[in-house]
């Protein structure tokens, strides 16, 4: 039975739809203390006095914790590899609060009502400080958001807290100023991309208990159980060996659960009280007190020859990390590293800028991770350049974009937080993706626009994108395969299934190597005591990095089996043919089934447990590629934009499971469309979040997302498991630029600040009209 490149339902889909208890809160101890967090009403303030006496005396309150109860250990909640590329600028609790929703105190009580009551009885006297609410004012402001002496970087990331800089970076190839001087056409422009909230349906959830061995067991809705264990140990100064982190099913992550959230609080309460505790974020807390996408400003210069050869790219970025620096540097770098190589034929490139602190909700990891922001800027600018050159945007891209077997100097210079890795793109079907997408959208008939009914105009637009497959030489994954009697296996992996289906595809890979059926490969994952290490679900790494680990472990198991089969039949290993069920000699004279062999190994002959373990760390990060094409309809009377159809042609190598890969791309497209047209994290002038519930922050519903057509290119990545690259993020990157390009093609309005709003489009339409009238 063939198991890879085969569309199979996810192994947990049925149970989850039937409502089996499987998520973090479903598995909390029934008698858990309920935790509530007192959160700051001010964007920036010093806690002058905090009195918890009355609150602590409420009947049913078990403990009230403030910054006074914690030693001052700065950590980062980022949940990345170690040493961490994010500044250590966060204390579990601090005597300063730096955004509305920042933590002031924790209450644990027998029930929610008591906890809520106690929260209100905590007396806090704040010295309210003037905040920085505009990220363009942050650099070198006289207000310093992080003035605490203990904070630090782990290696140089450009951290200068006195100037409100969380991280900074600069690189160049060639001399861009020279190049641009010699170009026939130079474009200089700016773009703004907004903060976006993840809005995973399951809020951040964690619970803790002390088990019968006296160890702290944390259940968490996390993307990074091993990083959670490490960071909890650091932050609470509690031995790593006494912590176990279990990740049950997770109700969506998208990067929002890569960072630490409630784990600090449940751990602190349970360690102090000895009692089980739990914390489920309210939706308001998810919005205000978790993380969102880094807003960015891009200042872009492009230079080209008049016959359409792109010569130079110059990009300067200002990124807003909010109150804390989680993923500040790495998201920033990806905005260049996973965008600039798309145009690898330029003479020179410059990329740099700063990531600044503000008193907003912190930014963190979010699917696309900088690449979507960078893609919006560059792919919009490319269309603007094409207009100046009077060249078809597809022709221009086909001439200038990266092709199979080629390389880019960027790969070597820029990694994630550190230097990158030299590589060429061995699998790159971008040319096919562009060509196929053009056919599917019917570009010839529809470009640039078609007049629709009454006030409606339809336009098409496109963009190309790339992402990565894990972080080479840093992120490691491992797998363990155990043989059971009757010949079925356990696949035990650190990899973190957050709904993307990694348990399923990793089982498919193992089953493929061992030529067994999927239901004979029993998966257990993401438990720091029982499973081997895996960095976690981020950086589009699971299929590629964890997948490769599984291939290696499964191949080891296969070798062990053949050795045992040969021994049992009394022949040499080379003489054995194994088809997943039966070991036999070539002449078919001797044979034994896997089931019999495994029973012998358990009970009667040469008894032993066969376990194979292996791990993998990438030596490169082969990018998945895609071309995104969109048809929009713009109402010229109202400015309202509707997406009529979205075409995605994706090269992610072999799809291990084409159905789950399809779901990844469709879901990512919807999030990208949401960011482009509907979603915006909005603050009031006081720094309070206006968009702090699902009515004020609107994600697309099934009424807005109605048509998508996703296809996969026939592609094979030599270094990937069965030819696969990763596919988790690539789908989100193109919508901002493709939709804005389509709007421009429809009505001549260039949106340079996201999200696209009806007002902005209409204003642009009216301005164009005015200009036309003036000319006449």
């Amino acid at each position, binding site marked *: 039975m063939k198991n890879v490149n085969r569309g199979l339902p996810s192994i947990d889909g049925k149970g989850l*739809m039937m*409502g089996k*208890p499987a998520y973090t809160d479903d598995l909390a101890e029934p008698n858990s203390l309920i935790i509530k967090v007192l959160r700051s009403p001010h964007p920036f303030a010093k806690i002058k006095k905090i009195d918890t006496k009355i609150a602590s005396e409420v009947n049913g309150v078990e403990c009230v914790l403030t910054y006074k109860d914690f030693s001052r250990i700065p950590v980062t909640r980022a949940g990345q590899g170690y040493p961490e590329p994010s500044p250590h600028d966060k204390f579990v609790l601090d005597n300063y609060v730096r955004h509305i929703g920042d933590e002031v105190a924790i209450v644990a009580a027998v029930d929610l009502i008591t906890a809520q009551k106690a929260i209100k009885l905590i007396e806090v006297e704040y010295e309210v400080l003037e905040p920085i609410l505009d990220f363009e004012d942050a650099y070198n402001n006289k207000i310093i958001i992080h003035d605490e002496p203990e904070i630090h970087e782990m290696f140089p990331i450009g951290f200068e807290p006195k100037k409100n800089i969380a991280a900074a970076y600069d690189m160049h190839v060639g001399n861009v100023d020279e190049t641009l001087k010699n170009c026939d056409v130079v474009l200089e422009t700016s773009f703004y991309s907004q903060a976006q909230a993840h809005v995973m349906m399951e809020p951040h959830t964690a619970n803790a208990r002390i088990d019968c061995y006296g160890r702290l067991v944390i259940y968490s809705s996390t993307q990074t159980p091993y990083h959670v264990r490490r960071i909890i140990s650091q932050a609470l100064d509690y031995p790593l060996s006494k912590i176990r982190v279990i990740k049950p099913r997770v109700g969506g992550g998208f990067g929002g659960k890569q960072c630490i959230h409630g784990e600090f609080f449940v751990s602190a309460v349970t360690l102090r009280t000895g009692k089980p505790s739990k914390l489920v974020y309210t939706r308001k807390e998810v919005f205000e007190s978790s993380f969102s996408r880094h807003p960015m400003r891009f200042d872009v210069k492009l230079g080209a020859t008049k016959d359409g050869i792109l010569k130079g790219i110059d990009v300067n970025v200002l990124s807003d990390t909010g109150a804390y620096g989680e993923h500040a540097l790495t998201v920033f770098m990806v905005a260049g590293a996973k965008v600039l190589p798309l145009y690898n034929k330029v003479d020179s490139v410059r990329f740099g800028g700063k990531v600044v602190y503000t008193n907003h909700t912190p930014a963190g990891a979010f699917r696309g991770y900088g690449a979507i922001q960078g893609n919006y800027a560059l792919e919009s600018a490319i269309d603007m350049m094409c207009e100046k050159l009077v060249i078809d945007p597809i022709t221009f891209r086909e001439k200038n974009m990266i092709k199979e077997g080629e390389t880019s100097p960027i790969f070597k210079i820029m990694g994630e937080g550190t230097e990158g890795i030299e590589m060429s793109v061995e699998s790159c079907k971008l040319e096919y993706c562009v060509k196929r997408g053009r056919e599917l959208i019917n570009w010839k008939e529809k470009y640039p626009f078609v007049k629709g009914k009454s006030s409606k105009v339809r336009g098409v637009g496109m963009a190309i994108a790339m992402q990565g497959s894990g972080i080479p030489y840093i992120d490691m994954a491992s797998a363990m395969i155990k043989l059971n009697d009757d010949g079925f296996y356990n696949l035990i992996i650190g990899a973190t299934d957050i709904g993307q289906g990694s348990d399923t595809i990793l089982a498919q890979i193992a089953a493929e190597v061992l030529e067994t059926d999927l239901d004979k490969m029993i998966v257990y994952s993401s438990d720091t005591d029982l499973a081997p290490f895996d960095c976690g679900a981020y950086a589009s790494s699971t299929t590629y990095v964890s997948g490769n680990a599984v291939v290696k472990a499964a191949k080891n198991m296969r070798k062990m089996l053949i050795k045992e089969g040969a021994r049992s039949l009394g022949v040499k290993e080379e003489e054995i043919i194994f088809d997943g069920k039966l070991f036999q000699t070539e002449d078919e004279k001797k044979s034994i089934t896997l089931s019999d062999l495994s029973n012998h190994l358990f009970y009667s002959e040469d008894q032993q447990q066969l376990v194979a373990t292996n791990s993998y760390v990438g030596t490169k990060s082969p990018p998945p590629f895609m071309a995104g094409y969109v048809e929009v309809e713009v109402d010229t009377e109202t400015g309202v934009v509707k997406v009529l159809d979205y075409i995605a042609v994706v090269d992610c190598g072999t799809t291990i499971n084409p159905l789950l890969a399809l779901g990844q791309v469709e879901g990512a497209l919807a999030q990208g469309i949401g960011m482009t047209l509907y979603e915006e994290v909005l603050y009031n002038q006081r720094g309070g979040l206006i968009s702090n519930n699902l009515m004020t922050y609107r994600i697309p519903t099934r009424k807005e997302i109605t048509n998508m057509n996703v296809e996969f290119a026939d592609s094979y990545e030599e270094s990937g498991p069965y030819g696969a690259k990763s596919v988790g993020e690539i789908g989100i990157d193109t919508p901002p630029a493709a939709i804005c390009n389509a709007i421009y093609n429809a009505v001549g309005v260039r949106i340079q600040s996201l999200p696209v709003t009806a007002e902005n489009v209409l204003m642009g339409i009216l301005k164009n009209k005015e200009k036309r009238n003036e000319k006449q």
Partner: protein
Amino acid sequence: MKVQLTINGYKKEIEVKPDEYLLDTLRNSNYLSVKRGCDSSSCGVCTVLLDGKPIASCSYLSVKAEGHEITTAEGIQKEAAQISAYFGDEGADQCGFCNPALALTIYAMKRELSDPTDEEIRDYLVGNLCRCSGYVGQQRAIRAYLEDTL
């Protein structure tokens, strides 16, 4: 105070507080298929059926449910399993957090609408948000399910 509810066909008497919402009553009584996703009655993951009609249990007072029939995903196991097979076939399975509520709503829709159009399906299910799937896979699956079983 006590309320009498029929949950998934069984009569139950449950102790509730006057201001308690059905979502908490159900989860506290171990009907864990019912999820919480928001504080503003706008995500749909807490949907249960009240006398066969979908309601948001997060904003429905338990005392108001006195004497009514409540259905959770635990009460439509066969149908949920059947629907999930269609989801699996269309790549519409992801984190699953929205799915028990969605299965219930599809189940109710099937009883209420005969042969709904694509637009009617979307209208009926619009309150069931999903952040993972991008909806189009769910739509394909729901259509196929209805075609095969209506």
